[in-house]
C-alpha cells in the first residue's frame, strides 16, 4: 500500500491536524471501506480512500473456472444487487458466441433485475438514513426489502447470491402465480415510497444535512467518470437502459429521473438520494409492463455444456443499481475466458470522494459515502 500520507498545506504552516482512521471497522463505512481522514478539528482536509480490503480477485478466478462456472462468482461482485452482475456476464458471453436469448428469458431477466434494483436502492437509501442518524427508515426499508427477497427467493431459491441467470437465458421459469404475486406486491409498495419520503426524504433536518453538500456538477461528474444514479444526480440525463438499450428495455416506457437541485444545488447529496427514490418508481413501472407483456415460450436458449465462444473480445454495458457496469471479456476460443475486466460504479465514486471531502465536515463524509451508495465488494471485486 502506498497511499501518500503527507498533506502539503498551502501556507506551509503546521496546524492542529488530526489523522483519523475511518475504517475498515467503522459503523458507517458499509463493510470494509477505509478512509484516512486528515482533519482539522471537525473540518476535513482530505479523506483518502484506501481500497482493497475486500479484494477477492474475482476477475482472475474467471480465467480458471470456465464460462458457465463463473456465473456464481459474479454474484459476489456486488452482493447487494447480484442480478445485474449475473446479467452482465451472461450478456458478454452471449454476445461473444452470438447467442439469441428467448424473449421470455429476457423478460424474466428484466423482472429479476428490476426487483434486484429496488432491493438495492432500498438498502442504499435506508442505510443513508441510518448514517445520518435516523434509525427508523432503515428498518422500514429492510422490511420492504425482505418481501422482495422473498419474491426473489421463490424465483431462484437464494436471497443474496442469486445465480439465477445462465448464458443463453435464465435458469428457471417464473413459478406458478408469480406474476400476480409481484403485481400485488407492487400495489403495496407504491404508497410506501411516499411514506418513506414523508418520513425521511422531506424531513427538514435531513434536507439540511444533504442539500448543497458535496456538489458535483455535470462536467465534473463526467470528468470523474461517475455513473448511474450518481451521474444522473448531477443532472446528466444518461441511462444505459434507454440510451444504449440492451435486453428488452426498448419495449418499455419509462423515464430517467435526473437531479435538478430541488433543495439546493444540482448534484448535491440530496439529488443523488432522490434520484434513487425515483428510480424505484420507474423500476416499478418497468416491472408492471414486463409482468403484463411477458410472452410464452422457453426461457433459455440451447447452449452447449462445453461452451467455447469464438476468439474475440467484447465490451458489454449494463445499468446496474450502482450505475453503468462495463464488462470487458476476451476469449481465446478455449473453454476458459482469456481475460475478464469489470468496471463498476462504486469504484469511480470512491475516486471522487477525496476531491469532494475537502473542506467538508466529518459528518458530511458519512453522508457523501452513503449518497454515492458505495458498496465495498463492488469497489474491490
Amino acid at each position, binding site marked *: 500500500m502506498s497511499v501518500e500520507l503527507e498533506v502539503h498545506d498551502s501556507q506551509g*504552516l*503546521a*496546524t*492542529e491536524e488530526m489523522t483519523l482512521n475511518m475504517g475498515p471497522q467503522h459503523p458507517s463505512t458499509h463493510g470494509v471501506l477505509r478512509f484516512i481522514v486528515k482533519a482539522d478539528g471537525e473540518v476535513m482536509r482530505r479523506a483518502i480512500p484506501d481500497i482493497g480490503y475486500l479484494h477477492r480477485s474475482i476477475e482472475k478466478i474467471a480465467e480458471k473456472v470456465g464460462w458457465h462456472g463463473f456465473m456464481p462468482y459474479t454474484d459476489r461482485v456486488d452482493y447487494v444487487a447480484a442480478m445485474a452482475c449475473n446479467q452482465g456476464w451472461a450478456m458478454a458471453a452471449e454476445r461473444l458466441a452470438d447467442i439469441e436469448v428467448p424473449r421470455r428469458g429476457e423478460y424474466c431477466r428484466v423482472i429479476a433485475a428490476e426487483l434486484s434494483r429496488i432491493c438495492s436502492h432500498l438498502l442504499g437509501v435506508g442505510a443513508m438514513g441510518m448514517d445520518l442518524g435516523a434509525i427508523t427508515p432503515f428498518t422500514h426499508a429492510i422490511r420492504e426489502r425482505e418481501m422482495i427477497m422473498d419474491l426473489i427467493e421463490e424465483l431462484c431459491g437464494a436471497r443474496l447470491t442469486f445465480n439465477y441467470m445462465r448464458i443463453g437465458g435464465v435458469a428457471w421459469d417464473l413459478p406458478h402465480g408469480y406474476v400476480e404475486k409481484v403485481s400485488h406486491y407492487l400495489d403495496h409498495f407504491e404508497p410506501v415510497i411516499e411514506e418513506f419520503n414523508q418520513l425521511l426524504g422531506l424531513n427538514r433536518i435531513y434536507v439540511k444535512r444533504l442539500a448543497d453538500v458535496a456538489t458535483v456538477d455535470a462536467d465534473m461528474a463526467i470528468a470523474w467518470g461517475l455513473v448511474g444514479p450518481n451521474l444522473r444526480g448531477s443532472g446528466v440525463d444518461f441511462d444505459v437502459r434507454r440510451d444504449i438499450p440492451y435486453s428488452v428495455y426498448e419495449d418499455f416506457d419509462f423515464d430517467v429521473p435526473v437531479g435538478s437541485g430541488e433543495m439546493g444545488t444540482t448534484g448535491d447529496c440530496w439529488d443523488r438520494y432522490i434520484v434513487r427514490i425515483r428510480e424505484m418508481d420507474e423500476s416499478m413501472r418497468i416491472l408492471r409492463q414486463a409482468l403484463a407483456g411477458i410472452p410464452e415460450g422457453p426461457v433459455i436458449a440451447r447452449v452447449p455444456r462445453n461452451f467455447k465462444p469464438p476468439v474475440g473480445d467484447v465490451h458489454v454495458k449494463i445499468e446496474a443499481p450502482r450505475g453503468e457496469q462495463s464488462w470487458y471479456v476476451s476469449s481465446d476460443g478455449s473453454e476458459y475466458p482469456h481475460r475478464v475486466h469489470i468496471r463498476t460504479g462504486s469504484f469511480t465514486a470512491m475516486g471522487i470522494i477525496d476531491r469532494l471531502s475537502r473542506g467538508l465536515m466529518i459528518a458530511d463524509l458519512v453522508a457523501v459515502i452513503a449518497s454515492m451508495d458505495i458498496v465495498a465488494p463492488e469497489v474491490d471485486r
Partner: protein
Amino acid sequence: MVGPAHFMALSAALFFIGAAGVATRRNIVVIFMSVELMLNAANLAFVAVARGLGTMEGQVIVFFVMTLAAAEAAVGLAVILAMFRNRQTVDAGEISLLKW
C-alpha cells in the same frame, strides 16, 4: 468552633499555592490556572468576611470576580490559542518577545 478566620487562613494557603504555581510553572496554561486559583482564594476570603459581618457586599464582589474570571478565561485562552498557532509552544519562556 470554626469561624471566618479559619476560612481566611485556608484562603491564604490557596492563594500562595497559586502564587507558587505562577512562579514555578512554565506552561502558560498551567500558569493561567494558577491565577484562577488565586482569584478563587480571594473569593473565599470575601465570602468569609461577608459571613463574619453578616452583610451581602462580599458576595456581590465574588459575583463580579467570577464575571471577570470568565472574561479573562475567554480572552486568555484565545490568546493562548493564537500563540500556539503561530509559535507551536505554550512555554512561557519562549514567548517573552511580546510580538509574533
